[in-house]
């Protein structure tokens, strides 16, 4: 520390972002158990529905794969992301980063980038497992589209997670809120999509975050049947992203006072 050499320029933005990304990636690797757990539930769904009756009840193999990927990315985005952010906020990790030359945007973009990577891994593993278990033959293009939808769906669930952590301050409450939300979405998807709750709930499920993403996954896995419902689901997903990101950014606080 010296007053003789005065710093005249801020550190390189690229170096800052690379450092953040590297650290977040190390954290991601050390948390691989949660990634495995996020793949376990989709895997169980794929295995347990590996019968004509079970698959038909949920709208066919493509819907089952869509459902499985959706639950995988929803669990890591809504529960994993929001809880990690809430805990780091509570411990003062963000404040420590914010007093460095790193911008708040770089801090969050780095975190989100790693989370998007996690979503891509989950989507890829689940779609490969799903295709094998349900004896489907998918093209490279279909795999690519699945990854694109998983980015979109992941973004939507991350925005929901961000909204949760923006509206709820305590990490304990974020944890329970995210779990309740996730369980609610699971039941809405499973029961509503199956039609066992009646027409009204079927409609609610269809337009719920889970429903729109499931529809999109099923749509890209069977492009020949792509229709206006898929387009509407795409628009709904974008709408959810806009609404929840506005809530998540507007009300997010970097520290708990």
């Amino acid at each position: 520390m010296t007053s003789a050499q005065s710093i005249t320029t801020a550190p390189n933005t690229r170096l800052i972002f690379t450092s953040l990304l590297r650290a977040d990636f190390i954290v991601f690797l050390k948390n691989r158990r949660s990634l495995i757990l996020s793949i376990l539930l989709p895997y169980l769904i794929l295995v347990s529905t590996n019968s004509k009756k079970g698959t038909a009840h949920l709208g066919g193999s493509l819907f089952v794969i869509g459902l499985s990927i959706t639950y995988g990315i929803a669990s890591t985005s809504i529960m994993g992301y929001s809880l990690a952010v809430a805990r780091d906020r509570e411990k003062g990790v963000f404040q420590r980063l914010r007093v460095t030359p790193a911008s708040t945007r770089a801090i969050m973009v780095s975190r989100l980038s790693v989370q998007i990577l996690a979503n891509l891994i989950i989507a890829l593993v689940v779609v490969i497992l799903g295709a094998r278990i349900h004896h489907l033959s998918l093209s490279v293009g279909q795999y690519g589209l699945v990854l694109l939808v998983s980015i979109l769906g992941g973004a939507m669930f991350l925005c929901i997670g961000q909204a949760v952590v923006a509206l709820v301050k305590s990490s304990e409450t974020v944890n329970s809120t995210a779990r309740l939300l996730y369980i609610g979405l699971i039941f809405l998807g499973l029961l509503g999509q199956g039609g066992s709750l009646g027409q009204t709930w079927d409609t609610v499920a269809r337009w719920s975050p889970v429903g729109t993403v499931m529809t999109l996954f099923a749509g890209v896995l069977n492009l020949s049947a792509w229709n206006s419902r898929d387009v509407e689901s795409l628009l709904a997903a974008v709408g959810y992203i806009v609404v929840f990101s506005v809530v998540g950014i507007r009300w997010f606080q970097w520290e708990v006072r």
Partner: protein
Amino acid sequence: MATRLKPNSDSCVPVGKGHRESSQDQLRQDPILDVRDLSVSFRTTKAVDRVSLHINRGEIFGLLGPNGAGKTSTLSAIEGLLKPERGTVLVDGVDVQRHPALARSKMGVQLQATSFQAQLSIRQIVQLYAGLYGVGLSDHQITERLDAIGLGHEALKLFKQLSGGQQQRLSLFIAVIHDPVLLLLDEPTSGLDPQSRRQLWSRIEHLRDQGGSILLTTHSMEEAQAVCDRVAIIDHGTVLATGAPAQLIGQHRDDPLVRQAARGAVTLEDVFIGLTGSEIRD
């Protein structure tokens, strides 16, 4: 030189201090930290009310005040964590609000409750923060630097696995990893045992001797009196007095409230109690 500021003063010009005032003014023209007319509010509560202060090169400056006086809010505004309602903060001539990245690259900060990512090892934490400040450190250099602060053998441990003193050493090490011109320390000795505290003060004084400027908050008046070149006593968001500890004592020695607080020779703590009152703050 004791320089008492009028409460709510929008200027940092000392009141009636003879010829040393002019030399102080000269230093004032090129301060490392220049806070002018700073106000910070949380909804309807004014946490910092038109605070002005400056820190010269090679100076340890203590910001003293009871709980809730506005010390941490002042520090947070200087760090750019809080957006002030009014006023400016210049670090080495750079406006913190206008050029936050450049201003922060000139500052080293140790927060009151610092925590690093729980999953990162000490070595990875050092790599991260070196990168954030644009400092290129090889693995060998990191090892050397950790050895120098006695943490070489802890490089693979997690932050939470370090003792309180080791955590404090690492926090300070990271705060100065980029050779900042200004070091901000928020209650750096809080929770430390006497040995660790003594060692920390030695490090802080060493940094000052190398030409660094340090702004710190502390509840320990003894430490402030022993180590700080100048202090400011703040309460209810307002600077009540500023000056060298010995001169503040001299200036307020005969104040009735200070005499009432004193048990023997008047200390900085007696002046502090005399100025801020004896009631307990939460």
